[in-house]
């Protein structure tokens, strides 16, 4: 059983951290969110059907944990320790080289309903269908958010 959990953590840790970081924009909170997602997965009583379901479940749960934390009264009263350092896109640790950090920073500043589809589509290379399953939305909604998010990004840059 322990082997199964360590395999799971190794497999998804980096990807979940990046998704959590894109929402929390600071390393410590992103790590907390990922840890909480793994804990919830271990406590999950409903059976996870397959690998794709497992992945989608973990991403969805991580995003929900991040959004719940951001909305909480406690979190809104806190101040980041070193905002200028923590906000940089370099802390997201993508597994490939991104030459345009300015665009990534702008993506991270987008409203949440644009940020998550755009981040998952462009930076994690998910398809529109996969994003629709992860975010529990229709494919048409995801397409619209990608288009409008890109328009907003262009205005911001």
């Amino acid at each position, binding site marked *: 059983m322990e082997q199964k959990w360590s395999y799971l953590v190794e497999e998804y840790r980096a990807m979940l951290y990046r998704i959590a970081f894109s929402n929390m924009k600071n390393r410590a909170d992103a790590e907390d969110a990922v840890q909480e997602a793994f804990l919830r997965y271990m406590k999950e009583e409903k059976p996870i059907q397959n690998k794709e379901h497992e992945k989608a479940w973990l991403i969805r749960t991580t995003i929900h944990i991040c959004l719940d934390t951001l909305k909480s009264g406690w979190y809104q009263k806190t101040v980041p320790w070193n905002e200028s350092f923590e906000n940089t896109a370099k802390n997201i640790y993508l*597994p*490939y*080289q*991104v030459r*345009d950090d300015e*665009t990534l920073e702008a*993506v991270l500043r987008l409203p949440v309903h644009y940020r998550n589809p*755009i981040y998952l*589509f*462009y*930076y994690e*290379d998910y*398809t*529109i*269908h996969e994003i629709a399953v992860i975010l529990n939305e229709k*494919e048409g909604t995801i*397409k619209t958010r*990608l*288009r409008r998010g*890109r328009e907003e*990004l*262009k205005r911001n*840059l």
Partner: protein
Amino acid sequence: MGIQEVQNQSQTPAYQKKKKAGRAEGFQESFLQNLKNRDRAKHAGTAVEKEGKQAAADTQAGVKVQADKVGMGRVGVSPGIRVTAAATQETLQAVEVRHMSYEESDHVRIAVKEGYTLKGKREEGGDARVYVEAKYEDGRVEAYQVDMAKVTGQTTHVIEQFALETMEEA
């Protein structure tokens, strides 16, 4: 009610006849319009074909201006034209999509503002070829194989430029 009166009632009222006649005229008009549209489409198709042949001729002569107009610069506008344009250029060949991940790629370009991503990998084997996979905002994925022996350093075509960058990274 007499027999005569019943017969009169069973006849189609005048306004309905008028409506039916109107429909028939409308159908004829739309049929004619369809024929005209088909003619126009035929002519347009011939024009596109001519343009494609012209682009191929230009490419062979070393002038790639026409081909670049219908290349990656028009991302998301007209997929048919883009593929045709790619096929007309000797350097690019449309191939089957392999769904390569970012980790597997030698080089990645994420163009969020333009609405596309490119992944490139140098092909194994004797010939210098680069496999390029393009994903667009509307969900389409297209793949090309670039013959690097025919790509010049001064190319302005986005996929060719990207293939050159991939060769440097690999």
